[in-house]
């Protein structure tokens, strides 16, 4: 009990004093997570569309596969990416390991299945008449997709929010591929894990609270933005 309250107080202290260390890791977290969410959305939403509307054999298999990939463990993603970008890997020359870029690569792989699955689920439940109407009044494939996105925008927003939540709270990939180097790749979650390992639970809780505060702010912003788009 004690350290929750201590944690809360520490969080307030950290935030209040605008601790430069805190600001830095918040910034790294936000930058990395937003970038990977953005990239994953740009890939995952269209992929979801193609799968949902495509008529190809093995469609059910692809969907089952995507569902399976929802259970992709961060350690597995970390190792996979590691193989390719470590010094001995194929892309070792780019010196990506232990950079923010490495985290982004891993996180994108982690959440593409989330974005795609929920896009499929949102899109395929939509009344087919929307698609047919768009087509018959002369929309091309992209315009039709856009019409559908508009109709299911809340579902897609939910998918993107979930993906963002997943990566900003994610620790395995950030740790393995980012390396938790202070001032470079230390994120809120890797910092939390570190403080936990040190036994400094108060600080860990404080960081957790800060993380939720940041996430709340992002969501409020997103909701406001959605509200505006709706009009």
């Amino acid at each position, binding site marked *: 009990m004690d350290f929750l309250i201590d944690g809360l107080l520490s969080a307030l202290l950290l935030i209040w004093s605008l601790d430069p260390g805190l600001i830095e890791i918040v910034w790294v977290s936000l930058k990395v997570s937003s970038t990977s969410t953005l990239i994953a959305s740009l890939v995952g939403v269209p992929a979801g569309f193609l799968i949902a509307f495509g008529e190809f054999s093995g469609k059910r298999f692809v969907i089952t596969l995507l569902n399976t990939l929802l259970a992709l463990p961060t350690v597995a993603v970390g190792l996979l990416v590691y193989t390719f970008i470590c010094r001995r890997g194929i892309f070792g020359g780019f010196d990506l390991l232990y950079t923010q870029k490495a985290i982004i690569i891993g996180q994108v792989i982690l959440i593409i299945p989330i974005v795609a699955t929920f896009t499929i689920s949102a899109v395929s439940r939509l*009344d087919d*008449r*929307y698609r*047919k*109407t*768009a*087509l*018959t*009044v*002369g*929309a*091309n*494939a992209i*315009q039709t997709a856009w*019409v559908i996105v*508009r*109709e299911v925008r809340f579902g897609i927003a939910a998918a993107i929010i979930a993906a963002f939540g997943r990566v900003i709270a994610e620790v395995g990939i950030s740790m393995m591929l980012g390396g938790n180097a202070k001032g470079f790749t230390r994120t809120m979650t890797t910092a939390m894990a570190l403080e936990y390992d040190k036994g400094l639970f108060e600080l860990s809780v404080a960081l957790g609270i800060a993380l939720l505060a940041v996430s709340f702010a992002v969501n409020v912003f997103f909701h406001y933005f959605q509200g505006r788009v709706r009009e």
Partner: protein
Amino acid sequence: MVYELRNITKTFEQRTVLNLERLSVKKGKILGLLGPNGAGKTTLLEIMAFLSSPTSGGMWFNQQKVDFTGGKLKDLRRRVVLVQQDSILFSTSVSNNVDFPLRIRKAPKAKREQIVGELLDMVGMRDFGHAPAHKLSSGETQRVAIARALACFPEVILLDEPTANVDVENQIAIERIIREINRTKGISVVFTTHNMIQASRLADETVFLYEGKVARSIYENIFSGRIQTDESGRQLCVAQNGLRLHVQHDKSGPVRISIDPAIVEISRNGNEFSEDNTFKGRLIQLTDEQGRVRALVDVGVPLSVLIPKEVFRSLGLGIGDDVWLNCPAKSIEIF
């Protein structure tokens, strides 16, 4: 011919719901499609709108064979527009809905606004321009959907029961619009309806669809029933509504029958007729139909009879009169 369809079939999970040997739509004409529920009207219109592909068979659009697998459908779709039976509007404002076809055709903004206004006026929905389209009543929705279709300025417009939910004033208005765009812009029209009178009023040609086939029969006086054998060993069709008709047919069990109103005979008294298939009824409606008069006779159920004008005059029939009807064997079609 705008459309030529040959041996078009459509099968849903083993059930063939469309099976058209031949159907064509003449350029610049209005074709009315009649047919009971489930006849395949909507299925056919979706194929003609290039929105779904037939299971087999060929379709020619302006003499060009349509390749349903190819990527060229988009260009064809731009020339044809379908107003669906339960139309949906995009969840944005009413004017945005009507504006949509113009916007994707990259019409200049000022012109778009003007056209949207005109079209909304046409269907009596100008006041609703800013209303959220997905909250309109059914009839309002249907009318906006028609305005949106007109904004496509198509070569062909396909309308699936365009006036089903529409109020009387707008039914008349929509019929007028259809006639107008057909006459002044030469747009070919195909529409479906259950209203025989609407079809004959509006269409240059009427096709009756039954169980996915073009039926010779006329979409009138249709009854479900079953064929039995009466005491005297003759075949008798007992309709669900109580009508009993002697028939000659090798089918038995449940059937549908239609009685051709042009062959049914009408008279002031029943003596003229044989006892078979003769019914007494009351004349409840008379309608003028280009050279003929349609008489609706209540014989327990309403039966429709078509009488050449001269014959009608000579009979001197008045509304509300008691009359006798005789349905000769050749007027009865079993299918």
